[in-house]
């Protein structure tokens, strides 16, 4: 049971590591979103700053830019590896942040993720707890919301160009 979801998360992070950003975006539902808060325990992405808060339109713009030849902050590109662990599954969850008007999902999958990123002689690590609200659409799993709470979300970051 957890296996199916674990496979899904590994597949998702592999798409990021392989820089298949369009395929990654296709995992999201049309009302999907990707959120990386900037404060510990942040309740809503609206009233406060976030590191990422992309709906599908913003995600598309971000990926267009990632594919642009003159994206200096990805010249050369980052090389990343994700490690996903501690996957647990909870049953269908209605909107956890009523303020944000989150649509309902079938299942909530919790996991830990470590991402190593290398670029220009510099290696850094992102570590966080992930929450994926997933929905079955036409027999396939889709992401309604992905939330990543980095342990150091309140830190000063050097530029982050690719989804963590």
């Amino acid at each position, binding site marked *: 049971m957890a296996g199916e979801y674990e496979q899904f998360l590994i597949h998702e992070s592999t798409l990021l590591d392989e820089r298949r950003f369009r395929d990654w975006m296709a995992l999201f539902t049309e009302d999907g979103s990707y959120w990386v808060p900037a404060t510990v325990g942040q309740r809503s992405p609206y009233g406060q*700053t*976030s590191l990422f808060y992309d709906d599908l339109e913003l995600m598309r*713009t971000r990926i267009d*830019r990632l594919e642009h030849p003159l*994206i200096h*902050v990805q*010249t050369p590109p980052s090389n990343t590896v994700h490690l996903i662990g501690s996957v647990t599954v909870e049953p269908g969850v209605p909107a956890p942040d009523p303020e944000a008007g989150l649509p309902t999902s079938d299942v909530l999958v919790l996991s830990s993720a470590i991402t190593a990123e290398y670029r220009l002689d510099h290696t850094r690590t992102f570590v966080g707890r992930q929450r994926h609200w997933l929905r079955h659409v036409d027999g396939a799993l889709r992401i309604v919301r992905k939330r990543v709470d980095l342990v150091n979300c309140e830190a*000063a970051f050097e*530029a982050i160009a690719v989804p963590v």
Partner: protein
Amino acid sequence: MPDGSLNDRGIASLIEPGRVHRRVYTDPGVFELEMQRLFGRAWLFVGHSTQVPKPGDFITTDLGRQPVLMTRHHDGSVRVVLNRCTHRGIKLVAERQGNRQRLICLYHGWTFDPDGTLLRVPVDEGCAPGFKLCDFNLAKAPRVGIYRGFVFASLSPAGIAFDDWIAPMKQNIDDIVDRAPGGEIALDAGVHRYLVRANWKMQAENAVDSYHVPFSHASTVNQKGVQFSRREGDNEGAKVVDGQRTAPQWKQRRSYSVGHGHCWTSNTELKENERSSAVYDEYRRTLEAAVGKERSDWILTPRMHNSLLYPNVSFMGLNMHIRVIRPIAVDLTEVNIYPVRLLGAPEAMNERNTRLLNVTHAAASFVQSDDLEAFARAQAGLQSLQTDWVDISRGLGREEAIDPPGALRQMATDELVVRGQFRAWLDYMSEA
């Protein structure tokens, strides 16, 4: 050629009319001197009074590299005191913000009021003969100035008066604050913090650099050469490039250098009448109800794109935020970006602004991240010993004198604003 020493002549030889020596960005000795002479003297932005709304509230920050506390005292006044215990020098408060009626040092328990008054010393029978509490109050910032809630401090008792220093830039601050239907803003919607492996001046210069935009931010412009809109209710962003060239509209922008290193750039012509969305229209109605139609139209006319109150704060009129520069080392800088929340405006308008800032100016943003890359690569390139000079000569000799006397204007794609910053830099750095 500059010699190795940093006497006043050595410093002066680093700056020429159209070029500066690479040491101003790379030399740790120059950086140390900047911390004393520039950041130790200049008026620096500390915070906004809405960051400490209630008595006992505090934020911590650094002025230059000196740790300070901005507090709200019991009497309601805002204070700026050094975040350093007067006993053995411990940093008194570690958190970035919070509320405490008494500041108690973790080491031996000396206890201070939010205004820095020493109230109590444990085991006071051990105090030296003649020990007086009042001799050990926290050090205060010698001078504090507040304009429309923005709190500035100087770590030097002498120097230009606050009113004279801020006068040429008041309009730029007003341009932002007046957009609040309540006439006040708050800096309480979080912060974007980012780190740059580069000298702090890279960010100060970049804040008002319109030359880099068409190329540096090429990945953010569409097929028509237009950057995505940064304003609620505006479907079209600014036209930045035309084919392979910088767009004529972009070249219409002007920059202004108004003394003390202060500078700003004007906006391209924006179609204000066509700006409309449910959220924006509601905001405009709220503003009109508060200040009247005529005044509202004037307030909403874009005059300023970005401005710099030299040396450490930028007021950004286009996508509304306050940008604070915090030098850490000669080649390391932290930049903090605060969304402006317009008090009295529909919250949806403020939410849009905050969300937009994620896209333009977070560490993970589409725009600022390419600037960060430029700063870091400048720092790397300037390690080269082959060439000592950095060119800042665009438009040199083509400046146009404007009011008030001493103020200059030219094309925003020229380098007037950089030269103006270095003129102020030299004034701070070479006075004994």
